[in-house]
């Protein structure tokens, strides 16, 4: 299982784009990168998953460079309700992913 490293916390303001970078230097060939969002006292919620290059859905984009040793979650135009903890996980279909220390994002008015 690849270990991931993220910033402990980040601050932003409403309407800004937020980029959270995750480092996974030992990622294996079959590993995917998955991001979850968690609000206090709620279960984590899936945001996006990718393997290589760029993935975009209705809430976020995920950028993964060619060497796959890092990935960046991009949240466009954040709002106060995006204040949460964001987790980057890596793993493949044969190994359950582990949550590491997430990034606490605080969006200010």
């Amino acid at each position, binding site marked *: 299982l690849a270990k991931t490293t993220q910033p402990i916390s980040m601050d932003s303001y409403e309407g800004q784009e937020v980029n959270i970078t995750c480092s996974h230097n030992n990622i294996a060939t079959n590993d995917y990168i998955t991001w979850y969002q968690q609000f206090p006292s*709620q279960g984590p919620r*899936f945001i996006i998953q990718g393997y290589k290059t760029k993935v975009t859905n209705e809430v976020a984009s995920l950028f993964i460079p060619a060497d796959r040793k890092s990935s960046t979650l991009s949240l466009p135009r954040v709002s106060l309700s995006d204040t949460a*903890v964001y987790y980057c996980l890596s793993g493949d*279909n044969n*190994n*359950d992913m582990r*949550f590491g220390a*997430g990034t606490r994002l605080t969006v200010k008015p």
Partner: protein
Amino acid sequence: AAGVIQSPRHLIKEKRETATLKCYPIPRHDTVYWYQQGPGQDPQFLISFYEKMQSDKGSIPDRFSAQQFSDYHSELNMSSLELGDSALYFCASSVDRGGDEQFFGPGTRLTVL
């Protein structure tokens, strides 16, 4: 859409008592995961089941055991409870094992007095 169901939502126990937490996965999901999240902590993976067999094991104490039944629901049994077991316990389910998207339940808040 149906979500993961956990029961009970809240549970208060005394030290050295036992507790059983239940999880009902989303229909047609055959993988169940259990996580423990202490106050201010990140979710810690405990154990998972795929097709009623243990799939992966994390930091689950020996005092805890779990199983997945023929209807795919799962139960986490906790014995000799300690104060440090007070936490939110999340169950998640996915269509397939491993890296597949996990859908989390609302959690069971266990308080050990």
